[in-house]
């Protein structure tokens, strides 16, 4: 199980409280995590990755295990602690704009 912490606005849009738990062996990369989130919550499509470019939105960052994964290619395996469910992946909105 992979645990994902979404920012407030996306939790609100998807109608979820707290973390999202993703099951299955196919979600061990950041790209697969986003695919799984968008499949389960279609209303979040385009909110983490831009619809047109497929790139991470510039005011979002990805963190896990105290490390910034924002610039790690989306097909790189996530840390073991994340894959084993001991640590969450955090999708974080930049503090910008007040």
């Amino acid at each position, binding site marked *: 199980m992979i645990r994902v912490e979404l920012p*407030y606005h996306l939790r*609100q849009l998807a109608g979820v409280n707290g973390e999202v738990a993703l099951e299955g062996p196919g979600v061990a990369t950041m790209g697969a995590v986003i695919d799984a989130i968008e499949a389960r919550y279609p*209303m979040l*499509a385009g909110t983490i990755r*831009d*619809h047109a470019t497929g790139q991470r939105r510039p005011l979002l960052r990805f963190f896990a295990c105290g490390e910034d994964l924002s610039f790690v290619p989306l097909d790189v395996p996530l840390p073991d602690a994340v894959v084993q469910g001991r640590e969450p992946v955090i999708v974080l*909105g930049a503090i*910008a*704009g007040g």
Partner: protein
Amino acid sequence: MSGVRVLVGTRKGAFILTSDGKRKNWEVSDVQFGGWQFYHLKGSPVDPDRIYASQSNDWFGQKMQRSSDGGRTWETVDSKFVYDGVPGTHQWYDGTPHPWEFKRVWHLEPSLTDPDTVFAGVEDAAMFKSTDGGATWTELSGLRRHSTGSKWAPGAGGMCLHTILIDPADHDRLYVAISAAGAFRSDDGGAAWKPITRGLYSKYLPVPDAEVGHCVHRLAMHPSRPRTLFMQKHWDVMRTDDSGDSWQKISGNLPTDFGFAIDVHAHEPETVFVVPIKSDSEHYPLDGKLQVFRSRSGGNEWEPLSKGLPQKDCYVNVLREAMDVDSLDSCGVYFGTTGGQVYASADGGDSWQAIVRDLPPVVSVEVQTIR
């Protein structure tokens, strides 16, 4: 019994204000999608419970909401706005070519006949259409591909297509306005477009009477006279009586003719409302006095309307999408401010009251007359 529903888009959520036909006592909904910007909400003229809403923010991009029950519940619909083909470039602020990039939806214009058909005006300027209730969107790319497109440039708020008008007598005739490209008309449902800017004069342009480049802030039309349009340009209030083929200045005795909002009385096609703003460098009313100006003669002669509006220490702005009218027997006029107030007049502008006072900055106000 008749009533009014006011759809308010703000920088931090949407609100729905409701009242009966007296328009004296108002209910304010809970904030809808708090924290998101709502550039525009608009209901279908043929099914008022069908409402479309443009939801966006800088972090998570564009979303689109649809309600089928008058705004009690919402459904997220598709928000993929993909330009047709390779979008090419327009002009950037410094005159260099800049790629066309989708940023957000500024305006939604539901069809006059079909609740599932709706047009969207977007930044960077283009027009999209959905015929399935927002499930999919297709660009009407003849506009963006107009031969002048590479010369269009953004205004201070971005290169936005912010006004869409449908001719009630000929639904294939469409008008749009773009900051800062100008105004355009299509006579074939949006396939082909022509600039309608003859008579516009913008002294800040290298060629002041150029075909494109004018910062048109808003267009308004009375449905009984679709060949007559009123325009609030960056500076200048204008009118045309030949579907945009030629424009005349009607600023007349306005104390300043800079502004954003303009609208027409529901029952009097020659009665027009504007909110003069001091200047393009000072986006607030003259002398700290919030005043609507009304012309009953289609322009040139204007009277200030201030009863019930703050007449000192008022430094709010009224944005282009933030004024509308209802169509009750005594026409109601409404506008929202960047200070979070929504003011309403139930007597055609003679007197005003704040129907809500402390919302986030108001971006858009749309009024539905419920019968």
